[in-house]
């Protein structure tokens, strides 16, 4: 028998809540995320959104109701910022004026001046700006659920902290359910309402950031130690 990539993973995400899936590379974080929007199909078990089994929903329809943010490669290089952000509304057949208005609102929301940025192409943006566009694109059709796969992973440390702070402010205002995958424990502690720790394809811990700090699972301890270099390193 082939051993499953992930197993024993069970959690719920409420509106306004951000569940951070934390884990090392290869621990099954991204796999878990892709099971939610059916980029991967589970061999066993169910994913439910608003009580409905995702397996019963047509994948393209399902995905248009789930925002998806990936590392910067996810923007379409031949689309302008406006075309990237307006993609899902366009697929959904919105009128052009409504898409244009929505794009401007969203760019404002993520801190990009619409007049400056609508006509630019991804290669003309900095890493941080690209990531803001990625978040705006995921929010375009106002999905109730957002999936974020290490969205700030490729950024320089200063830009990363800046975007993390802003994202934190956005979380509260948007009131959406979010699943946020990262291997950065500080990011997880900052942005998560709850933290789910994955290890070897299993969810080995699920709880608030405070509970995570006190958890005695060796992997959780290892992550906390990585976040806090300790008195010796502090000098």
């Amino acid at each position, binding site marked *: 028998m082939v051993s499953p990539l992930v197993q024993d993973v069970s959690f719920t995400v409420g509106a306004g809540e951000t569940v951070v899936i934390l884990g090392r590379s290869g621990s099954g974080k991204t796999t878990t995320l892709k099971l939610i*929007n059916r*980029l991967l199909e589970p061999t066993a078990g169910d994913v439910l959104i608003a009580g409905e089994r995702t397996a019963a929903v047509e*994948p*393209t*329809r*399902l*995905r*248009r109701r789930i925002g*998806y943010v*990936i*590392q910067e*490669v*996810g*923007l*379409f*290089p*031949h689309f302008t910022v406006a075309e990237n952000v307006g*993609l*899902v509304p366009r*697929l959904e057949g919105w009128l052009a004026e409504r898409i244009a208005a929505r794009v401007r609102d969203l760019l404002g929301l993520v801190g990009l001046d619409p007049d400056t940025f609508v006509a630019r*192409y991804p*290669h003309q943006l900095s890493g941080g700006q690209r990531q803001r566009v990625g978040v705006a*694109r995921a929010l375009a059709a106002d999905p109730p659920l957002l999936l974020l796969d290490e969205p700030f992973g490729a950024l320089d440390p200063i830009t990363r902290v800046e975007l993390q702070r802003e994202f934190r402010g956005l979380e509260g205002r948007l009131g959406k359910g979010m699943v946020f995958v990262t291997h950065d424990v500080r990011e997880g502690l900052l942005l998560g309402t709850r933290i789910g720790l994955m290890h070897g394809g299993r969810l080995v811990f699920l709880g608030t950031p405070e509970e995570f700090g006190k958890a005695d699972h060796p992997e959780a301890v290892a992550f906390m130690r990585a976040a806090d270099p300790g008195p010796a390193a502090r000098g």
Partner: protein
Amino acid sequence: MSLLSFYARNTTEVLGLIWQHLYLVALSTGAATIIGVPLGMLLTRRPAWRGSVLGLANIFQTVPSLALFGILIPILGIGFWTAVTALVVYALLPIVRNTYTGIAGVDPAVREAGRGMGMTDGELLRLVELPLAASVILAGIRVATVVSVGVATIGAAIGAGGLGVYIFRGVAVVDDTLILAGAIPAALMALAADGALGLLERRLAWHR
């Protein structure tokens, strides 16, 4: 007899042959594009067919052009349409191969982003894969066009007309001027097609 005075005395005939040649090339490359691009697209969706389809196209490509005309004559007879068929067969490989390579070369992360946004396969192809592969596909059409201009000269051997008429006549009567009268415009035509399509190709290439 100099080339210029030859052209001056046979202007109507020369223009007619150039037109015939252009028509042969445009028709066959156009048909090969209409067949080849969808075929290349299909191969990206049916990778199992890739080996046999590209292999078959490769085999056709290795048959010498004169021999291919020879093979087709018992089936299609001589004349214009036999030449067109042979030219289409020649033009197919670069077009199919480049369409396949261009689409297969699209960054998998970009493709997955498209699927993750909820694009159907058709939307992914139309909005993402084809635009990103456009310059590679056009490069294939460009190669096919240039090859066709050359191969089309042999069409004269089976009565399809074109600039090959002068070349074959020149060879038969050992007249260099006559050979050049056909070869020079054909060479210029190939260069012009290469240049024009190359320009278009660069315009279609997107910037990272």
